[in-house]
Structures are given as structure tokens and as C-alpha cells.
């Protein structure tokens, strides 16, 4: 499978083939392809055989996907960075990746020392100047080359770049095509809502493009104006919905989100966080004819590592919903702390093995060696990735049940709690900080930070909390700002001499109870 050639072929088809719809605009395959060709030629002229990754910053602009394809055609890995990431975060990605070029589709300026910044207007001038020129195939990405690097939250406070090769993606897309063959009819329109900083978006983009189908784009601004969005949805003819469970749950709350709105919807793919039976039940009630797929997978093992169709029978069973079975030719092993494989039914760490396991963390050998390992299975060398997720196998099907460490998922966003702590500690007001995720049944989970101030006299000053939030906002995206901040004069210490997180959580729980019962 040659991804670039397959997509390029749609240029020659007769008729106007739409690649992407965004608001009241659309871009055809021929426009997408010729623009990416033009940009690729510029990149080749500028960098030659130098394969340094390129940062593509922005949101859902057409120029984003044009740039991704241009990078593939000129042999550069692309680093997609959503504009929800603040300046300081982009800065650490730029520094970590040693990029030489940032294509900036946002309105803000992102200039860094010795890094070329191309803004949207300039980008379109370049595309215009190189119009009609086709890049030499010898520059195209090769199988072992990195196609993209996606930065995720890192426990040190600096994001980690997960490196995925072209062959990793090919393996995944072969599975995608089979899945869509099974579930979808000829007309395929895919929802393109997930942020490009999150790897499930790669699934939408490339499965639509290699099938020559259409991406129906929803951006963050639309998500803050549901009234308009519902009108927009009505015209969509959407066949495949892909999002996190949290996103679809918001819509399910409105009774107008039903079969009438999406009369052609056939498939709902949900991934990025645990899926509840209630959510699937609601979907089946509103859309009696759709199928729901639950997907699971860390960025490190290329988008999804397991999947399963959630049947109505599963909803009646006692256990929570499974994450399913591994993709063809890949394996999931449940291991104990010594790395020994556990028997069925026992809980342990989920380890992924196969062609979907990525290259590692970009320019970070130490972190890579901790979780990416080479193993011999049936005397064949194979790479495996230790996810840090806890799970078990029952009747051959895999179930997820939590984390080994302080990584959490909040509304589909992957966050290391220590990442927030490290960034809180950058704030001069703050002496020490601990962040916990607070969950109560039937209530939305939220982040709570316990903070010790440098100036103990300000402990009763409520303005401090807003000051902290304001400064933290400069370092982390909004979804990482703790909802609740509790000021403390000291932290409880456990037997091991560490801050006692459990006790802090307990304290929070008691506080919340007091509020509920009006004490």
C-alpha cells in the first residue's frame, strides 16, 4: 500500500471529488493534492534531503492537511500541534524536536530563535508560486521513516514526542479499510472533529483520504455554539461518527440528536477513554440502525490497539464494557511486575506487541527504553510497548481497569498529573503542589490541586486562586487547569516519606460530603 500514490490518484478522477468540508467551504481532491505538491516542492528546495521534522500549528484549517501531505511528499515527519496549546507548550515542543520550520496557521505569532515561521498568508503565496510542480518521488517518505510525531503530556512537565513510522500507519490503515468494508456502504462521510494533537484524528484523516471519501469538519468554535452546529449537522449526511465518549455524551443530552439529524449514520467509533453502557444504550435508542465500536489504544502503538463491536447483549451483562481484541497479527499480553505473562482472568499490565508498536519517544532514549522493549516471541524478534494500563482477559476478550501510575484521562485528554504539578511549581507564588483526579459516581470527574504558597499569609486570600489559574494558563492547555484549587499550609506525609495523596483525596471527599449535607 503506497498511501501517497493512492491519494494522488484521486486527482485524476473525473468530476469534483470533495476531500474536506469545513463551514461553508470545501476543498476538492485535485486542489488538496496539487497544493500539497506545490508546498512539498518548496520544502524540497529549502531543505533537500534533510529530514528534520516540521511543526504544523493550527486547528482545522485546510492548510493543516495540505501541510501534512506536503511533509510526507518531501520526506519530513510532521508534528501536529493544536492551537489549544499555549505558547510555552509550543516552545518546549519546538525545542525538544529541534525543528527548523513551523507552519503556523493561527493568528498569533510563534517565532523562535533560528526557527523559520511561515504564516498562513505566506504559505498560500508559496503554494501559488510552486503551482503545477510535482515533487520527485524519491523524496517521498519510506516505510521506516517517521510519518508523524505527536506530543503527549510528560510527567516531567515537558511533553514527550511519540514517533510513528509510515509502516506503523500502513499496518493500521489496512485494518481500518477492512473495518469500513464490513460496516459501511458506498457513501462515506467521516466526522473530523478530534483535535489533530490527538492521534485518533489520524484515523479519520487517512482512512477518508485513502478511500477517496469526504471529511466533515467540526471545529472548537462550533462546539461552543451548538445552535449553529445542529443546523450544520443537518446538512452533513454523515456516515461515520468518530469521537471520544465524552463528546458524544454531550450531544446525546439533546433530544434532537437522533436519526432524523443523521439519517445516513451507520457507524459510531468511540475511543480515548472508558466507554459506559449508559452511553451506548443512549446511542442505540437514538440510532437503532447504527453499530458502535469501542476502540482502545495508546498513541505509542498507533491509534487503536484493540477494538470490539458493542452488542446489545453486552449491555445486559454484569461486567463493564470490554476493549475487545487486538488488531490482526498483533498481540496483547497481560504481564505482572516481573514481566511474566499472566493467565486469563488475572489483572496485570497491558502490553502490546506487533507492527503497530511505534518507534519510541523522539530524541529521548531513556524514556523510550523504559517502555519499548525488544522481545523474542516464537524465536522471532518483535517490539512491544508496556502501556502502564491495567487490564485482564476474560473469555479471550480484553478488559481495561485503570492505570499503574499518575496518568489520567479527562474528557478524552491524556494527562500526567505530575505534568500539571511541575507546571504549577513554575509559578513563583507556589512552594509545592499536588494534583489529583477526583471521581464520584454519577458526577463529572475533575482535577483538584492542593497548593502550598510561598507566602503563608495569603492562605485565606481567594484572589490567589485566580492568580494561579491565570499563570498556569500560560504553561498548559485549558483542559489541564485544575477546576478546584485548595490552599494548604502543609501536606500530609505517608510512611514512605512521600506526600500522602490518598489522604488528600480523602480530605477532599469529606469536604464535598459536608457541602452536600449542608454542614
Amino acid at each position, binding site marked *: 500500500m503506497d498511501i501517497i500514490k493512492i491519494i494522488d490518484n484521486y486527482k485524476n478522477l473525473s468530476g469534483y471529488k470533495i476531500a474536506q468540508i469545513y463551514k461553508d467551504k470545501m476543498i476538492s481532491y485535485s486542489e488538496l493534492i496539487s497544493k500539497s505538491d506545490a508546498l512539498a516542492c518548496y520544502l524540497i528546495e529549502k531543505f533537500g534531503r534533510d529530514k528534520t521534522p516540521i511543526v504544523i500549528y493550527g486547528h482545522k484549517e485546510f492548510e493543516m492537511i495540505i501541510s501534512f501531505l506536503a511533509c510526507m511528499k518531501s520526506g519530513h515527519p510532521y508534528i501536529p500541534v493544536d492551537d489549544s496549546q499555549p505558547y510555552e507548550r509550543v516552545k518546549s515542543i519546538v525545542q525538544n524536536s529541534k525543528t527548523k520550520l513551523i507552519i503556523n496557521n493561527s493568528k498569533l505569532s510563534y517565532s523562535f530563535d533560528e526557527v523559520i515561521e511561515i504564516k498562513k498568508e505566506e504559505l498560500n503565496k508559496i503554494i501559488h508560486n510552486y503551482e503545477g510542480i510535482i515533487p520527485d518521488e524519491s523524496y517521498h517518505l519510506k516505510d521506516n521513516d517517521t510519518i508523524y510525531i505527536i506530543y503527549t503530556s510528560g510527567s516531567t512537565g515537558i511533553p514527550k514526542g511519540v514517533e510513528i513510522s509510515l509502516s506503523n500507519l500502513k499496518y493500521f490503515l489496512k485494518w481500518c479499510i477492512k473495518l469500513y468494508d464490513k460496516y459501511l456502504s458506498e457513501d462515506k462521510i467521516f466526522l473530523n472533529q478530534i483535535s489533530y494533537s490527538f492521534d485518533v484524528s489520524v484515523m479519520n484523516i487517512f482512512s477518508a483520504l485513502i478511500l477517496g471519501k469526504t471529511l466533515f469538519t467540526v471545529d472548537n468554535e462550533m*462546539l461552543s455554539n451548538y445552535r449553529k452546529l445542529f443546523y450544520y449537522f443537518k446538512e452533513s449526511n454523515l456516515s461515520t461518527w468518530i469521537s471520544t465518549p465524552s463528546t458524544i455524551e454531550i450531544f446525546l443530552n439533546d433530544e434532537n440528536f437522533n436519526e432524523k439529524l443523521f439519517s445516513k449514520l451507520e457507524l459510531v467509533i468511540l475511543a480515548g477513554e472508558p466507554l459506559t453502557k449508559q452511553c451506548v444504550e443512549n446511542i442505540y435508542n437514538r440510532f437503532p440502525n447504527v453499530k458502535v465500536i469501542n476502540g482502545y489504544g495508546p498513541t505509542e502503538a498507533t491509534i487503536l490497539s484493540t477494538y470490539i463491536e458493542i452488542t446489545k447483549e453486552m449491555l445486559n451483562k454484569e461486567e463493564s464494557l470490554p476493549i475487545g481484541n487486538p488488531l490482526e497479527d498483533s498481540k496483547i499480553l497481560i504481564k505482572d511486575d516481573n514481566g511474566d505473562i499472566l493467565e486469563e482472568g488475572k489483572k496485570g499490565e497491558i502490553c502490546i506487541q506487533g507492527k503497530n508498536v511505534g518507534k519510541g519517544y523522539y530524541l529521548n532514549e531513556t524514556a523510550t527504553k523504559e517502555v519499548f522493549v525488544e522481545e523474542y516471541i516464537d524465536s522471532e524478534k518483535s517490539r512491544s510497548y508496556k502501556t502502564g494500563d491495567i487490564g485482564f482477559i476474560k473469555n479471550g476478550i480484553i478488559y481495561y481497569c485503570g492505570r499503574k501510575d499518575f496518568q489520567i484521562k479527562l*474528557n478524552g485528554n491524556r494527562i500526567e498529573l505530575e505534568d500539571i504539578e511541575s507546571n504549577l511549581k513554575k509559578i513563583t507564588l507556589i512552594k509545592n503542589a499536588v494534583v489529583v483526579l477526583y471521581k464520584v459516581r454519577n458526577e*463529572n470527574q475533575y482535577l483538584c490541586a492542593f497548593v502550598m504558597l510561598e507566602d503563608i499569609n495569603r492562605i485565606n486570600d481567594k484572589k490567589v486562586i485566580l492568580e494561579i489559574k491565570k499563570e498556569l494558563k500560560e504553561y498548559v492547555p485549558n483542559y489541564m487547569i485544575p*477546576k478546584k484549587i485548595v490552599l494548604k499550609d502543609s501536606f500530609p506525609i505517608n510512611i514512605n516519606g512521600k506526600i500522602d495523596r490518598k489522604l488528600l483525596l480523602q480530605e477532599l471527599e469529606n469536604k464535598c460530603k459536608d457541602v452536600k449535607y449542608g454542614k
Partner: protein
Amino acid sequence: MESKIINILENICKTDEINADLDIELFDYGYLDSLDVVELLTRIEEELKVKISISEIIREEISTPNKIIEFVKTHI
């Protein structure tokens, strides 16, 4: 009604500091996210008997406690 709304907000935002500033941008400072909006509408319906559905919402119109109060008033 105002105090009821503030009460609901304090409950959802898990804090009482919003009472100090009713013009605080709730989405910008991590007090509210999209899932909380659903919760907010449910509570408003339960406690104030005002039914507002998600598809009537424009985030800009409910981004501060004061705006939420105004918004609910126009839906009575």
C-alpha cells in the same frame, strides 16, 4: 433565582470563589467544560424548572456567572 443559580454554579465549579467575581470567565479558567454545561442545564431544569436544551447554547452567552443569570432569565 440569582442565588440559586450561583449555588448551582458553585456546586458544579466546586468552589465558592466565583461568588467574589460574577464576571469571571468560567471556561477560560478551568471552572467549566463542555460536560459541565450538560450538568448545568440539568440542574437548572431540576431546580428552577427552566428547560434549556444543548442546541440552544452559545458558549459566549453563558461564559460568566452574570451571563448565565441573564441567559436563564430570558428563558423563563
